[in-house]
């Protein structure tokens, strides 16, 4: 292998599994350390830098970071990253004064944002401090998009949403509520320098089986129904409720039904549990509330009697894998499940009836806009897409990531720089050695199990729709959970020419990450390390030739605990534990330029 180039930010970034998996690349280990130190405000601000909505995401994020967490490969479940984020948001001081300042003198460029969801708000958050004049068009009366109308308030309290959306609107965004954009052509004539479409995927998918239109008042589309609940148009539902589909929207629907009078609630899925789209924790929360999950049932028809829905018929399926490895179903029997209401939660679609097809914005055969993955730009220069509007339903954190990228593009576009010119990432790498056996992070391994979230009592939960179910971590829970983090951003940094090949690091490593051996290609090296390196998703580090024997140091990054024992036992400091900080560029702010947010924040 060629010596690993650790000066490329990508190498060490990839070692920080959580940060690598996060679309917005939130610096998770650092914010967890700040929480451990009780520095909630700093932790919140560090979070906000990348993910803009720490309080909201600390409750609702789909957490791509957690399945990626190295901790789960080492021992037990992943660190409760998401809920720790909420701790920072819950306990922070007043932050308004520490948010980016917006200049009074504008730069003369005007940007239109369509839809007031997370992606548009992120664009506004990034562009307002640069002096842009931003107009936000929203069909509803308040901002938040899906976060407001589709996520039930028992998961996301309105106050949290209002606060974090408010930080952005208060920057002086020209918010035009109750103003749906009905014609893109007309909007484009209004002289905006750039237009960003963040209108989401607002259309629930239809289930066209016999009987669908026989009792329309009892059959609902999930996201529409949730919005109606939010606006108070729906206040009750029948006793026996069937939810068709088993994604996260289905989870919100079944739990909301439980609070509106449903007592016998079943979520019906075509496949078996391993194939469910809903996050495991959302399934658990629903089951805790008495929701029943029915597997391997495909909807066949609605059964109505005298115009009243009484049941739904399903085909019970058996799934088998054929020779080519493809899953095939066969029908075992037809069963009817009684129901007073059915909610369809089988997916969402984009809908752009308001974008004329002859104005240079190209769409594909599925009706989706053609958008560049890197620049978020459509086929019409100056028109950008992000969030669910770009490539269909994702989740909030993806929308935020899209928003940051789109803001860079819009800034480039307005400043006459090609949108393809993406500012590079940077990094800092600083030793965390403080003295003998002393490192500037908690390197002691905690064998504690993942802390589970405390939930409100079932009885209080169902009294009002808005009673928040998750109570957040208390001080003890927080203190325990932060110690489970392995601090993957504290990198094991090796300087080959200092090594005397004494083997101390190889001998002490608790998880056999290290090997000094003759060089070879990666496939070969992976077979002759101290422990087999079978996880191909994790990199091998290879050093330059060692001075005494010309062998090389190889490290399998897979299970490294970042405990620092290699550096601790190294007589020449060839190994050092160095804190890696990924520097990300934002619109008008190249990576490595001074942060606009004071990190050592002291509230006045």
């Amino acid at each position: 292998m060629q010596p690993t180039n650790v000066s490329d930010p990508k190498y060490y970034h990839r070692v920080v599994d959580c940060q690598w998996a996060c679309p917005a690349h939130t610096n998770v280990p650092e914010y967890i350390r700040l929480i451990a130190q009780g520095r909630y405000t700093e932790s919140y601000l560090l979070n906000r830098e990348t993910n803009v909505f720490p309080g909201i995401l600390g409750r609702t994020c789909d957490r791509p970071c957690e399945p990626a967490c190295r901790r789960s490969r080492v021992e037990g479940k992943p660190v409760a990253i998401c809920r720790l984020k909420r701790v920072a948001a819950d306990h922070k001081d007043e932050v308004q004064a520490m948010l980016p300042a917006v200049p009074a003198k504008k730069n003369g460029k005007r940007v239109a944002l369509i839809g007031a969801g997370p992606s548009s708000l992120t664009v506004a958050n990034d562009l307002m401090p640069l002096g842009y004049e931003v107009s936000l068009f929203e069909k509803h009366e308040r901002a938040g998009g899906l976060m407001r109308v589709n996520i039930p308030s028992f998961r996301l309290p309105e106050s949290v949403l209002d606060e974090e959306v408010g930080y952005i609107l208060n920057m002086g965004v020209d918010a035009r509520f109750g103003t749906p954009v009905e014609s893109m052509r007309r909007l484009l004539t209004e002289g905006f320098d750039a237009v960003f479409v963040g209108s989401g995927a607002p259309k629930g998918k239809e289930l066209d089986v016999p009987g669908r239109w026989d009792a329309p008042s009892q059959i609902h589309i999930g996201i529409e129904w949730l919005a109606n609940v939010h606006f108070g148009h729906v206040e009750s539902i029948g006793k026996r409720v069937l939810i068709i589909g088993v994604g996260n929207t289905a989870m919100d629907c079944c739990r909301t039904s439980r609070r509106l009078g449903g007592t016998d609630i079943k979520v019906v899925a075509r496949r078996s549990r391993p194939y469910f789209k809903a996050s495991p924790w959302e399934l658990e929360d629903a089951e805790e509330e008495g929701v029943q999950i029915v597997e391997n049932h495909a909807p066949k028809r609605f059964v109505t009697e005298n115009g009243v829905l009484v049941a739904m018929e399903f085909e019970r399926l058996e799934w088998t894998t054929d020779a080519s490895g493809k899953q095939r179903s066969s029908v075992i029997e037809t069963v009817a499940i009684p129901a007073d209401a059915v909610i369809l939660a089988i997916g969402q679609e984009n809908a752009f009836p308001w974008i004329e097809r002859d104005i240079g914005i190209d769409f594909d055969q599925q009706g989706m806009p053609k958008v560049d993955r890197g620049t978020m730009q459509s086929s019409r220069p100056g028109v950008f897409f992000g969030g669910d509007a770009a490539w269909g339903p994702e989740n909030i954190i993806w929308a935020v990531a899209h928003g940051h990228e789109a803001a860079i593009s819009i800034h480039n576009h307005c400043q006459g720089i090609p949108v393809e010119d993406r500012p590079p990432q940077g990094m800092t790498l600083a030793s965390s050695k403080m003295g003998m056996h002393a490192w500037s992070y908690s390197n002691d391994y905690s064998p504690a199990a993942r802390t589970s979230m405390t939930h409100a009592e079932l009885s209080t939960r169902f009294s009002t729709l808005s009673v928040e179910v998750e109570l957040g971590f208390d001080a003890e829970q927080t203190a325990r959970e932060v110690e489970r983090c392995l601090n993957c951003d504290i990198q094991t940094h090796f300087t080959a020419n200092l090594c005397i090949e004494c083997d101390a690091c190889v001998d002490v490593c608790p998880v056999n990450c290290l090997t000094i051996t003759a060089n070879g290609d990666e496939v070969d090296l992976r077979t002759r390390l101290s422990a087999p390196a079978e996880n191909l998703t994790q990199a091998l580090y290879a050093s330059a030739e060692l001075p005494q024997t010309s062998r090389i140091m190889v490290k399998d990054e897979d299970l490294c605990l970042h405990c620092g024992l290699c550096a601790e036992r190294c007589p020449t400091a060839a190994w050092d534990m160095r804190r890696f900080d990924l520097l990300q560029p934002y619109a008008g702010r190249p990576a490595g330029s001074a942060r606009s947010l004071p990190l050592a924040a002291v509230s006045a």
Partner: protein
Amino acid sequence: MTSIAKPPVRHPGLQKNALGLTRRDYEGAMSTLCAGCGHDSVTSALITAFWEMDIPPHRAAKMSGIGCSSKTTAYFMRQSHGFNAVHGRMPSVATGANAANRSLTYVGISGDGDSLSIGLGQLCHAIRRGLRLLYVLENNGVYGLTKGQFSASADVGSTAKRGEPNLQPPIDPVLLALSLGATFVARSFSGDKDELIPILKAGLAHNGFALVDVISPCVSFNDHEGSTKSYRYTREHAEEVAPVDFIPLRREITAQSAEGTAMSVTMHDGSTVRFRRVKEGYDPTDRDAAYAYVRHAQERGEIATGLLYLDERGFEMHASNRTVSTPLVDVPFASLCPGRAALDELMEEFR
């Protein structure tokens, strides 16, 4: 964290030996030696050797005296028996232990100070006695625990950390053991586990006293330019004369593994020591030739390493004393100490 502890988690892919134990089950307390000490590598090699030999930790005894090296028995096989004896007196205590319980596997860890100065007489007589013990002499040429004075193994002309040269000729434990009739004499280097581990395993299988002199650099006091026992000097001057592989009894010798083998020797217990190669003209079964070779290598400034001399028959204390095959600890008290009448009868024989 102000003190260091090794996290209990381990790699899930760790191999298990015939006892179902991983290498980590053979570990001991965290080392408090200087970072980079050769002794820690020797400890690690011992862990591997015992693990690969499937020796149950509770059926082994770790014997040591005083010194940096003698501390290391705490750093492996925490479930084993152990005795930390007076300075230089480990061979006597080991003799007593072995006399009482011949069924344990004994490993003695000593250093150049413990063995070649204060304990030289003890070492000599343990060799003569044929004490069945793997005697690991962690040799760094200095008294590390007292801050780096020359030890009895320091070469003439090698310098202390502050520059003054050593004038007194060294005692070479390999030559000493050869001259005293040892049946297993080896030298290796802490920085070369490929060579060291098979030697340790062969030594554990040997029927008698097995001396392994391990050059084990002292990073704090003897890893400098003028040292002849530094990592760099040893790497530059070591001459692998007779590296071996060790094949336990139950494992078949495959044609492939035997390929290129210079010679194979079947040990007392049926296991095989395979010389991977031997220096041309070198015969590890000829005591006088081995002595001469090691001596000449020394004159050339080279360090001969490998299993330098092996008499596979061994020479063992219990055999020469014709003790019972049952370990004395397992002999019922009534027969072990048959009482006054039996004693009188015995005494009568000598009248």
